[in-house]
């Protein structure tokens, strides 16, 4: 891949919750089209890290640039960045009072100012892509967990984002539904979109990721290609963590 400006640039980013130092001197460059998996024990700050990218969390020190725009308190900058960044949550967070189709067309119509007809078409394209087009008229709570998460992915894709963030997307799912969501994510990965995924699904990391990052106590401890990361972990803590989650 040609060397270009990184699409996400963390530069000595620090964040505190009160007195708790949750992100410590994070330096990270993500290239366009790169697929990154972030893992680590709970409380290590990995969710906080990706939430800083679309300003769901604010950092107190350091600079964070997304697609060339620096993230500060400037509301216009934040709005512009959120149009380029899509997010998928652990708890799906679909809007229960709207149908699946309405969930998808809400943002394109009200934020993107796109006519309804075009928004509906786009939504159906995305629903077909995640293989759930026949449920368009149903309400979210009438669907299974795996179906809801696929709708959530489609909803994020409707704004044609440049970056997709996944915050433990399969952690709230029953085991038999994890595969259907991972399949969708693998397909996405193969389409060239920049992806940052916080997950414990190491099989996904091995098959799709360009880079695996291990975080602990707010700090990036190790990052490497999947092959190197899993076969040759360099840090003691990485080895420790891997032994715990790969054991079963």
């Amino acid at each position: 891949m040609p060397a270009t400006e990184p699409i996400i640039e963390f530069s000595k980013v620090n964040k505190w919750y009160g007195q708790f130092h949750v992100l410590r001197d994070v330096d990270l460059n993500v290239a366009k089209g790169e697929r990154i998996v972030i893992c680590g024990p709970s409380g290590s700050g990995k969710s906080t890290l990706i939430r800083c990218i679309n300003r769901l969390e604010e950092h107190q020190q350091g600079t964070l640039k997304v697609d060339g725009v620096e993230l500060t308190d400037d509301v216009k900058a934040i709005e512009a960045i959120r149009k380029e960044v899509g997010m998928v949550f652990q708890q799906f967070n679909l809007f229960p009072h709207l149908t699946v189709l309405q969930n998808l067309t809400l943002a394109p119509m009200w934020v993107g100012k796109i006519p309804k007809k075009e928004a509906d078409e786009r939504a159906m394209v995305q629903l077909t892509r995640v293989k759930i087009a026949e449920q368009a008229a149903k309400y979210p709570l009438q669907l299974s967990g795996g179906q809801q998460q696929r709708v959530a992915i489609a909803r994020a894709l409707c704004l044609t984002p440049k970056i997709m963030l996944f915050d433990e997307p399969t952690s709230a799912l029953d085991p038999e539904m994890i595969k259907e969501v991972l399949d969708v994510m693998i397909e996405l990965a193969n389409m060239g979109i920049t992806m940052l995924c916080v997950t414990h699904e190491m099989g996904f990391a091995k098959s799709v990721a360009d880079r695996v990052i291990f975080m602990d106590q707010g700090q990036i401890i190790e990052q490497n290609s999947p092959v190197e990361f899993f076969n040759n972990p360099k840090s003691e803590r990485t080895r420790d963590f891997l032994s715990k989650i790969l054991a079963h």
Partner: protein
Amino acid sequence: MSTAAVALQLIPSRPPPVATEGVLPWLKRNLFSDWKNTLGTLIVLAVLVRYLPPLLNWAVFNAVARPDNAACRAIGHEGACWGVIAEKYRLILFGRYPYEQQWRPLVAATLMVVLIAASCYRAFWKPWLIGAWVVVLTAFFVLMHGGVLGLTPVETARWGGFPLTIMLSTIGLAVAFPLSVLVAVGRRSRLPGIRTLCVLYVELIRGVPLISVLFMASFMFPLFMPAGWSIDVLVRVQVGIILFSAAYLAEVVRGGLQALPRGQVEAAASLGLSYWQTARKVVLPQSLRLVVPAIMNTFIGTFKDTSLVTIVSLYDLTGALQLALGDSDWRKFFLEGQLFVAAIYFVCCFAMSRYSQWIERHLNTGTRRK
């Protein structure tokens, strides 16, 4: 681009650059975080500065605490006359109970309050508590009514003030609660006769104001009685309160019964428990626990509703106040008396609502998945 890297050392925790603890950051966050917040703070402060000092002057600095009518009149509207409470407190607290015998309602009310407070502690939830209730209730009536043990009899029409409020609420709720459980269970019964009766009762009582129930109790109950029989006004009103509270409690209990997963009853049936055993051991304990906040709310509501007996001429705490300040000398200082009574109600109700939150926390630890 894709860099392989390993952190060589762990970065230690540092304190945040801008302080977040301490008085100044707290002030900034809570009072002055943005222009809307600041504007709100300034407006509230302006209002407080304008109205708080005169209020304090009236209530505290210029107030007269001695029961001195002349001093109170002299002060007029400049200062509160808390002396009216010092003068009239016995009338307010005990109603028209004979003056020399007022130690009896005092003791009776204290016993009740202590019993209620004791019943709140989990440590005391043992079988002997029921015995204690029976003993205290008997003692209460013996003390209030007299006629035995050398105590002069005092007719129920003269009972009043705080003991009357406590009595109406406590007995009202103690009888209403089991009744409400029966009605709630009956409402879910598969037998249409019983179900209709329960539904009619609940909807009828809940659809009308308490006042009309009390009027019905006052005026219509005597007509229901066979010739020659007459029931005490107090008993009639007490029955009215019981019927009213039971209807509302029945709805609350029904909510709890509905919220219970059906699997519980199925599990009990598969274990061979009978209908009543299931109800007693499986369904009721769990359902009631689910609706404890609503039950406590109804209790607080009933306690406040006893004030309505004033309208049917029973002198509970609120009614006794009206009586006490009918005195033309002290009539101008009604407000101070009203605030005193309001404070008593506030303390009781506030304590009950705090207790309700405590009970919610302690009873739900088994059922809440954190």
